[in-house]
């Protein structure tokens, strides 16, 4: 765009026509500023995406760690419950010990009774046989 003297002003070629000359000397064009901001924003996004791979690895490890922590907490609770219950069972078994000894003595008595019953049965059969033989005479 040529000025009134016919000479070409380089600054005016580089600038947009609607802008005033005073503004053009002090500040760049607003759309160029916008384009620069956009360019820097995109560059920042590009750099962030380059680093996002490592960030995703860390997030994965964090998730896996949290799941493992919850699993271990659950197992800890189960183990604790089982431990308490087994302690109670041991105490109850200790309290039952005299009764178990009574059961053992009862079993011995019953075995003795059973043997006596077998002997009695055999004696009664011998008696029956002898009585029958005497009857036949």
């Amino acid at each position, binding site marked *: 765009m040529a000025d009134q003297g016919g000479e070409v002003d380089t600054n005016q070629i580089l600038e947009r026509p609607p802008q005033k000359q005073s503004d053009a000397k002090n500040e760049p064009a607003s759309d160029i500023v916008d384009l620069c901001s956009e360019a820097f924003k995109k560059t920042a996004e590009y750099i962030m995406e380059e680093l996002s*791979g490592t960030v995703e690895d860390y997030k994965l490890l964090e998730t896996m760690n949290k799941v493992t922590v919850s*699993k271990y907490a659950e197992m800890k609770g*189960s183990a604790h419950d*089982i431990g308490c219950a087994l302690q109670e069972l041991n105490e109850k078994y200790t309290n039952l010990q005299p009764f178990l000894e009574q*059961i053992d003595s*009862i079993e011995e008595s019953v075995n003795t009774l059973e043997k006596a019953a077998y002997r009695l049965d055999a004696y009664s059969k011998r008696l029956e046989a002898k009585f029958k033989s005497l009857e036949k005479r």
Partner: protein
Amino acid sequence: MYSSSWNQETKLKLNDKVSASVNDMGSLIRHVVRSSKSPEMLGQAARNFCSQEHYIQNSSETLMKMGLIKAQFEFQQSAIERSVSSLEEIQDQLKTIQR
């Protein structure tokens, strides 16, 4: 004419320079990430986690089975306690028979 071609050349050079700067930045970031060896270490950590998962699952199942066995023990123990109450009567009957 000369100024317009100079302007065009300046724009092309600026464009190339900006592209080169952005590519250099990307290369620098990639180099920093690679030299820190964090992808290898993180991958190894994830693999170790996965290898332990089988053992953790087995331990969890074993604990569940132990819980079931504990419950069965408790049922049996309560049944024994109920049966123990009739021991005295049985002993009395045995003493009577033994006389």
